[in-house]
C-alpha cells in the first residue's frame, strides 16, 4: 500500500534515533558540530516526510504508506505503521517541530549540549512513532518510551523547580498510561489475541466492556491532553522546561492525548463514547473557561501560556466529543493550529528569556520599542491564539464551537465565552509585555537575529496559510472523519443509557 519506494514512516521515526546514535559518537567538546548534525538530521527527516503531504491520497479513509512486518509472533504483535487523515498532519507537525526545537535552543542550551540534542531527537522520533503505530503494542512502546527523554529534557535543562515538575509529569503520565496498558491487554484477550488496531476496530464490544475500557483509556489520554481535573502537571512542566521542551510539550506531546481519543476511544468504544459525551463536553467546557480565568491571574509568562493551552485543548476535546464532522475536523485542525501557535509563543518566550533570563511579565514592559520585529511576530501569534479571522486559530475555534454548539447548545455558548476570556488575557499579556513605558531592564535588548526569524517564519506562514486557505488541510481529514463518524454512529443508539444506570449494572 506504500506508494513510495522507501519506508517513509520508519524513516521518519528512526532517522532521528540514528541521528541520536550518531551524536553519541561525537566528542563532547565539539558543540557546534553536535548542533549542526542535529539540525541536519532533523531537516532531512522533515524533507523526507514531505511526501506524506504531497503523495497522500485524500480520497480514502484507508491507512496509507502502510508498513507491516511480523515482530513478536509469540503474541501476534506486528510492526505495523500507517497514517490516515487523522494522523498524517500530526506526523508532519512533529517532524517540523524537531527542526524548530533544534534551532531555538541553539544558544540557550549551555550544559550537556550533546545529551540535549540526543534527547530532543529521540523524543521527536518516539512521538512520530506514536502517531504512526497501528499496533497497540508498538503504540504503547512509543507512548511510554517518549517519557524517558522528555523526563531528562525537563529535569536536566529545566528551571529552578524542575525536579518537582519532572516527577509530577512522569507520575501523572504513568498513572494514566498503566491503566491504559491494562485496558489494552484486556482488549487483546477479549478480541482474541490481537494488538492490530484495525482488526480491533472491526469488532464490536458489549457495553460494559466498552464502559470500563473507555475509562481506562480516558485515564491515559485525559492526562496527556490535559483535561480539566488532571491538568495541573502541565503548567509546572511548561514553566520549568527549557524552551525546546515547552515547544515539544505544547506542539506535539499533548496532542498525543487528543489523538488517542480520536484514534482509539471513539472507534473502539462508540457506545460508551456516546454515553459519556455529556461528561466529556462538561469537562472540556470547564477546561476552556476555568483555564482561561486562571490565565488572568498569572504573573509568569510560561505559566500563562501553559494554562492558555489547557484552555485551547478544551476546545479540541469539545470538538472531538461533539461527534460531528465540523467538531472533529475542527478539533484536528485546531491540534495543528495549537501546535503551531502555542509552540511559536513558547519559542517567543524563549527568545525573551534568552535575553533577560526572567519569565516574569512585570519585567518586560514596553518591549516593542527595542524589539519591533519581535513584537510584530508575537502579535501575529497572539491574534492566532485569540482566533482572529484570517488566522488559523479562527478556523479551528469556529469549527469546534460550531460542532460543540450543534452537539449541545450550552457547550457551544460557554465555549464561545471562552473566546472572550481568551482575547482578554492574551491582549492584556501583549499590552503588559510590549506596550507602555519601556522597562529599564529591556531598553537595550537586541531584536531577533536571523536564526530566530528563520525559526519563526515557517510558523507565521502556516498561521496565515491555514487561516486564509485551510481547504488543503481540511481535505486530508474528510474521508477519515466521515468513516470515523459512521463507525461511531452505526453502533446501536445508546444515548439513553446514563452513567448511573451503567454503574449499577456493572456493580451487580
Amino acid at each position: 500500500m506504500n506508494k513510495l519506494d522507501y519506508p517513509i514512516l520508519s524513516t521518519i521515526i528512526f532517522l532521528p534515533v540514528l541521528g541520536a546514535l550518531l551524536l553519541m559518537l561525537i566528542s563532547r567538546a565539539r558543540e557546534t558540530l553536535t548542533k549542526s548534525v542535529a539540525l541536519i538530521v532533523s531537516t532531512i527527516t522533515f524533507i523526507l516526510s514531505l511526501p506524506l503531504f504531497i503523495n497522500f491520497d485524500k480520497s480514502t479513509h484507508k491507512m496509507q504508506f502502510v508498513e507491516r512486518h511480523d515482530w513478536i509472533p509469540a503474541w501476534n504483535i506486528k510492526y505495523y505503521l500507517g497514517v490516515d487523515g487523522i494522523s498524517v498532519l500530526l506526523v508532519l507537525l512533529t517532524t517540523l517541530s524537531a527542526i524548530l526545537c533544534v534551532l531555538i535552543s541553539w544558544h540557550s542550551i549551555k550544559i550537556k549540549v550533546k545529551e540535549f540534542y540526543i534527547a530532543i531527537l529521540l523524543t521527536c522520533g518516539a512521538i512520530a512513532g506514536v502517531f504512526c503505530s497501528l499496533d497497540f503494542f508498538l503504540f504503547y512502546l512509543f507512548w511510554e518510551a517518549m517519557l524517558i527523554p522528555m523526563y531528562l529534557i525537563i529535569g536536566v535543562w529545566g528551571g529552578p523547580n524542575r525536579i518537582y515538575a519532572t516527577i509530577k509529569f512522569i507520575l501523572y503520565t504513568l498513572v494514566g498510561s498503566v491503566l491504559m496498558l491494562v485496558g489494552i491487554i484486556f482488549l487483546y484477550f477479549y478480541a482474541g489475541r490481537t494488538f492490530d488496531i484495525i482488526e480491533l476496530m472491526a469488532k464490536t464490544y458489549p457495553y460494559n466492556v466498552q464502559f470500563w475500557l473507555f475509562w481506562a483509556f480516558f485515564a491515559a489520554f485525559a492526562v496527556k491532553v490535559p483535561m480539566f481535573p488532571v491538568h495541573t502537571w502541565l503548567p509546572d512542566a511548561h514553566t520549568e522546561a527549557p524552551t525546546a521542551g515547552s515547544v515539544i510539550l505544547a506542539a506535539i506531546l499533548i496532542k498525543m492525548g487528543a489523538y488517542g481519543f480520536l484514534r482509539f476511544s471513539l472507534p473502539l468504544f462508540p457506545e460508551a463514547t456516546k454515553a459519556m459525551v455529556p461528561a466529556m463536553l462538561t469537562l472540556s467546557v470547564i477546561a476552556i473557561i476555568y483555564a482561561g480565568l486562571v490565565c488572568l491571574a498569572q504573573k509568569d509568562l510560561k505559566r500563562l501560556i501553559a494554562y492558555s493551552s489547557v484552555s485551547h485543548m478544551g476546545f479540541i476535546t469539545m470538538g472531538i466529543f461533539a461527534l460531528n464532522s465540523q467538531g472533529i475536523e475542527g478539533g484536528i485542525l485546531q491540534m495543528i493550529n495549537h501546535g503551531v501557535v502555542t509552540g511559536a509563543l513558547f519559542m517567543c518566550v524563549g527568545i525573551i528569556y534568552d535575553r533577560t533570563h526572567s519569565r516574569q511579565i512585570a519585567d518586560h514592559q514596553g518591549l516593542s520599542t527595542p524589539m519591533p520585529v519581535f513584537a510584530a511576530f508575537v502579535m501575529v501569534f497572539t491574534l492566532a491564539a485569540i482566533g482572529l479571522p484570517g488566522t488559523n486559530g479562527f478556523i479551528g475555534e469556529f469549527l469546534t464551537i460550531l460542532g460543540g454548539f450543534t452537539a449541545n447548545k450550552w457547550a457551544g455558548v460557554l465555549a464561545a465565552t471562552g473566546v472572550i476570556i481568551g482575547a482578554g488575557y492574551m491582549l492584556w499579556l501583549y499590552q503588559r509585555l510590549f506596550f507602555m513605558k519601556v522597562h529599564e531592564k529591556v531598553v537595550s535588548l537586541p531584536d531577533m537575529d536571523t536564526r530566530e526569524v528563520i525559526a519563526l517564519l515557517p510558523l507565521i506562514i502556516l498561521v496565515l496559510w491555514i487561516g486564509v486557505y485551510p481547504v488543503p488541510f481540511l481535505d486530508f481529514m474528510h474521508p477519515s472523519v466521515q468513516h470515523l463518524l459512521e463507525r461511531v454512529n452505526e453502533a446501536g443508539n445508546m444515548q439513553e443509557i446514563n452513567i448511573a444506570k451503567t454503574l449499577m449494572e456493572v456493580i451487580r
Partner: protein
Amino acid sequence: MESYVLIPFLPLTAFVINILLGRDLIRDKAHWVSCLTIIGSFVISVITLIDVINGRVINEDLYTWIISGKFRVSVGFLIDQLTAVMLIVVTGVGSLIFIYSIGYMHGDKGYYRFFAYMSLFVFFMLMLVMANNFLILYLGWEGVGLCSYFLIGFWFEKKSASDAGKKAFITCRFGDFGFALGVIMIFLTFGTLHYIPVFAEVKNFAGQTVNFLGYDIDLITLIALLLFAGAVGKSAQIPLHVWLPDAMEGPTPVSALIHAATMVTAGVFMVARCNPIFNLSETAMITVAVIGAVTSLFAATIGTFQNDIKRIIAYSTISHLGMMFAACGIGAYAAGIFHLYTHAFFKALLFLAAGSVIHAVHHNDIQRMGGLKKYMLITYVTMLFGALSAGGVPGFSGFFSKDEIIWSTFASVSPVGKLAWFLVTAVAFFTPFYSFRMIFLTFHRKFRGTHHEEHHLHESPPVMTIPLILLASGALAAGWVGIPHLLGGGAQFTEFLKPVVGHPELHGTHAQEWGIMGLSTTIALSGIIIAAIFYLIKTYLPVRLARNFSSIYRTLFNKYYVDELYSLIIIRPSLWVANSFIEGFTDAKIIEGIVNGVPRSIGRFSEKLRKIQTGLAHHYAIIMAAGAFFIVALVLLSR
C-alpha cells in the same frame, strides 16, 4: 474576475508593502503607497457604483474558504446598491482622511506603521461591506476591530492609549460573541451562510421556535437579536458604548475614519443588510429601535457636558448612530443608511477640524481654548459647516437625513415609533446645542490658554485644510441626493436603496410632515441659540446651573458612571474569581492538594511502615510466625 476585486486588495497590498518595507526602505514616504492605493480603490468604487446604478448586481465567489461536512463557505463578494453606497463612503471619505493624515501624522516615528494599519483597516472594512456571506462579514467585522485596536493604541507608550485599544477590542468581543452565535444559528437553520439563499429561505422559518438553553424562543428573533448584539458592540450602543469615548486616545484621523465615518457604522450596515431577517421579528425590531433611540438621547446628554473636544464629537457619534438604529428599528433602513452616508461626511469633517485645532493647541480641553477664529479661519469655517450639518440646519445634508428619520419614526406603524420620534426629537435639540457649545468655546471670545501656547497658534498646512474644505462641501451638499419629495426632491437615495432594503409603510399626511419638519428645525435652531446665550452672552449661566444642579451635572459629566459600574460588576469580579478563587483556591488547594497530598501521604506511610523493620531477628521471626498463623487461620475459617 473583474476590477472590483481590486477594491479591497489594493489597500491590502499597501499594508503588506508598508509593514514589510516601511521601517527600513519607505519610512516617511509610506503615505504614497497607501494614498495612491485607496484613491485607486475609490476610482474603481465609483465605476462599480455606476455599474450598479445601471442595474448590475455582482455576486461572485472567489474560492472556497472552509469545507467541513455540510459546512461550506467561500470567499466571495456581493455588490449591490447598499454595498455600492458603503464603498463610496469608505473609500471616498477614507481617501480624504488619508491625505489629511499626511500632514497630521507628519514626523511621527510610527509614520509607516500608521499608514500600514490604516490601509489594513480599509481592506477589512471593504471586505465587511463587500462580503456575500456571513463568515466573510465576520472576518471584516473582527478585522476592523483589530485595526481599531492597533490604531487606538497607536501611541502605545501611553498606558491610557494601550488600555483604550484593549478596551475597544474586548468590549466589541462581547458583542461579537453574540454575533458569532448568530452566525452559527444561521448555519444550523439554513445550512448555509451565503446571503442570497439565507434571505430567500428566511420566510419559511418565520414563527418557528427553537429551544435555546432551555427557553423556547422564536427562531428568527433569536438570530436577529444575536446578530444585533454584534452591532451593539461595534456601533457602541448601550450597553456596550463605553469603548468609543476612550477610543479618542488614538490619533485624530483614526477617530475620524474609524470612529465616525466607517467602522462604527458597520453595525447599521449589518442590520440593514440583514433586513429580511429583522423584518420578520417584531421583537427584534422593537429592541433595535428602542436601544437606538435611547442611546441617541443618552449619548447626547453626556456629550453636552464634556470638555474634551474629541469626546464631545465621540458622544455625538454615538448619538447619531443611535438615530440610525432607531430608523432601522422602525424599518426605515434607507433613512438609516442615508444618515450614515451624510454623517460620514460631517462627522469626519468635525473630527478632522478638531484635529487641526489640536494640532495647533496641543491639547483637547475646550475650556483652555477660545478665540481661535482669528488664527485658523479655514478650520473655523469648515468646522462650522460640520456643526450646522450635524445640527440639522436646513439646507445642510445632515438636515435631510435627520429629517427623514424623524419623519419616518413619527409616521411609522411600529408600536415604538412615537417613542422613538420623541427621543430623536429631543436629540435634535441637544445635537446643535453641544456642537455649537464646542464651536463657541473653541473659536469665539478670547484665548484662555497660556501665552506660550498662544503664539504657537497657526493654521494647519494645506494638505490638511484641503481635505477639510472638500469634506465641508460634502457636509453641505452630500445630502442633496436625498432631498425628500416634499421639498420637490426626488429622494433618489431612498429609491436607489429600495431593491435591497425595501421601504417602510408610513401613515401620515403632508401637513403632518411639514409640521414635524418645522418642529425639528425650530428645536434645532433653539438649540443653537441657547448655546449662544450660554457661551457667548451670559457665560456665567452654565457655571451657576452646574452649581445648582450639581448632582445631575456630576452624573452627566461622569457619563452616568457606566464605566465604574462595569468595572464593579464585571472586571473586578472576574479578576477576583481568577486570582483568589480559581488560581488561589481550586487549583492550588483542591486539585494540587490532592495531587501532592496523595504521594506525600504514601511517603509518610512508607516512613511508618519501615519502622516495622526493627533490625531485630526476633521481630522478623515473630512476623513470619504471625504470617504463617494468619494464613492458616484464614484458610481454616474460610472453609
